[in-house]
């Protein structure tokens, strides 16, 4: 638990008093509640840093917020604001509180820590003050739900470093739970289609002019991710991996995003834009790379070209059977 390098000793005077935490449960499924509750055990087993839950927000060193903050719950949170100690730390925990996940589009969630939610009635939205300005968490712990280890580490980091939380202190600690290998990606967009939390986005990086090299930006928002692994299951090339390990603690919600870039090339035949074929993947699957010209055709032109190459359907089927027999698959 050596976070900042300066607060590892159990004899540190800051550890003499348990760190008091006020938990604000803003609804949601109760998964985060369970994981926050199990911090009790962490605190009991720890020799150095300890924490306790308090019921009065005035006496808390830290406010811990989790859950899907809907309108009713937001009214309660607002009523609590004046009672918070101005010097207290604020920690946002879980995908709902940070990014709203799929509940954003249902129109019930009033606000998330990374901005006002979409889908609110306009009249309601106009007088809305974004709670990020009022609540402004110092640290975010993402996951659905986050592991108790992550929450514990987040608490510990805020307790030790306080307002002096510097960029260096958190460097090298953060690892991602989504691994994306862009060299294998076909840019098919299946993952974006299936993602229930709308955490995956494929977008064209810039307006493409003639004679310019373009690219597709693939973004995975780990703050909204539910780690349901549907995308991993569907991905045809296996370019996506969800690992069980990895710490999701960041100082800004934007830092949760994992990015990858797919370069666009022009089709040899029709000159349209297409995602460059993942040569490594093709080599791995087929054993060797086919003729270079095949790789530079877009899927439509490739179909036309192969139809011309094989002339008749019967010939094509025969060719396919031959291939199957050769490879034994």
């Amino acid at each position, binding site marked *: 638990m050596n976070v900042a390098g300066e607060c590892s000793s159990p004899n540190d005077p800051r550890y003499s008093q348990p760190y008091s935490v006020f*938990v604000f*449960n*803003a*609804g*949601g*499924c*109760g*998964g*985060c*509640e*369970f*994981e926050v*509750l*199990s911090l*009790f*055990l962490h605190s*009991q087993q720890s020799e150095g840093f300890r924490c306790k839950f308090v019921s009065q927000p005035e006496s808390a060193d830290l406010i811990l917020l989790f*859950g*899907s903050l*809907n309108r*009713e*719950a937001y009214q*309660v949170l607002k009523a609590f604001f004046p009672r918070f100690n101005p010097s207290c730390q604020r920690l946002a925990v879980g995908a709902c509180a940070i990014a709203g996940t*799929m*509940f954003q*589009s*249902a*129109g*019930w*969630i009033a606000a998330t820590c990374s901005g006002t939610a979409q889908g609110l009635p306009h009249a309601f939205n106009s007088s809305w003050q974004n709670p990020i300005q009022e609540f402004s968490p110092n640290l975010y712990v993402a996951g*659905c*739900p986050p*592991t108790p280890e992550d929450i514990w580490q987040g608490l510990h980091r805020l307790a030790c470093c306080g307002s002096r939380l510097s960029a260096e202190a958190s460097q090298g600690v953060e690892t991602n739970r989504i691994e994306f290998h862009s060299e294998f990606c076909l840019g098919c967009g299946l993952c974006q289609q*299936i993602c*229930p*939390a709308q955490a995956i986005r494929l977008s064209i990086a810039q307006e493409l002019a003639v004679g310019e090299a373009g690219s597709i930006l693939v973004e995975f928002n780990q703050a909204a991710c*539910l*780690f*349901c*692994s*549907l995308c991993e*299951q569907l991905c045809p090339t296996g370019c996506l991996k969800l690992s*069980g390990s990895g710490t999701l603690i960041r100082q800004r919600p934007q830092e949760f995003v994992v990015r990858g870039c797919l370069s666009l090339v022009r089709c040899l035949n029709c000159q349209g834009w297409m995602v460059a074929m993942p040569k490594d993947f093709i080599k791995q699957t087929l054993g060797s790379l086919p003729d270079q010209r095949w790789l530079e055709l877009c899927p439509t032109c490739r179909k036309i070209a192969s139809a011309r190459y094989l002339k008749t359907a019967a010939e094509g089927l025969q060719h396919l059977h031959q291939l199957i027999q050769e490879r034994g698959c």
Partner: protein
Amino acid sequence: MSPTSRLPLDPYLPAIGNPLTIEYDLQHGRVSQVRVSLGYAQRGIEHLAKKQNIWQNLILLQRICGICPISHTLCFCQTLESLAKVQIPRRAAYLRTLVAEIERIQSHLLPLICLAAHLNASSSCLRLLFEAREAAAAMLCLLTGKRVNYDVNQIGGVRVDLKKAEVAKTMLSMLGSFDRPLDEARGSLLRHERLKGLGFLSSQAAESSQATGPVARASGLARDLRKEGGGYAAYPELKFQIPTSSGGDVLARYEIRILEIIESIRMIRQILSSLPQGKLSVDPPPLLLPGQAAGSVEAPRGENHYQLTLSAHLQIEQIKITTPTEYNLEALKMMLMDAQPEDVPLIVASADPCYACLER
């Protein structure tokens, strides 16, 4: 006649910490009328389910409740499987039952933890109960890779497998770690004289208020969907009993939960020792058919009921979810009648209402 005073418990219920409002009237120092109002956890899940596809719905419906996620997906899958008329492989049925029973253990331990915290039990007792719940979470993590919100079910089978024999062995050895906390809870926690006769619910009242789950069983109604109507998943093939009690009070409800944990441990032992070989899922994937269907499962807190209509485009046209806490709210109001105000938190906690299931 003395004036009536109105007291709200809001926004967090004492003893369980749930964001739920219970307002009651006091007359002559006794509770005379109870109102429950909701709203803090509303997320619009049923509305969202109509917009998303079936695969996404599995993930969405799981997020209704983080304490009993598999009961929701199990109910959804079984309803759709009955519509598609598919029989899931035996191994898949056993694995579903395995996860559901571990979930029952960890869900039943939660009210015990709340009780221990509310009665200011010794820290060793609280710690033992917490460790037991951590053991249940660790078992789920071993099996599914996640402690909470484990995405296990898919239509026609399961997505996880118990591949290694060592995992089964580790899980069997972990089952032993529940004995001490349960003895401790029975020996010290449930010895409190205060719990006896508190929040009495007669079997007639339980019957008329449509109580379900441990609340109904503690009032002498032997109601359990795992046995009733032939059961579902792998339950017809397992040996287990439905513990009931005629006590009807707070103490009986906690005792029933402890007895159910012991039955669940028995079931997990049977499953781990005789897990059938075979496929994890129907192959090829089941062909869904449009139509209307309903299904229920026995969630840890009671009956979980789904009713849905699938359109010709295989989108959910209409869905109605009824959760155990919804059934038990009327029973909770009956329990609270004539109670003393200081006992209200204890009685509410003994019914184990789940705010996340209640308002979706």
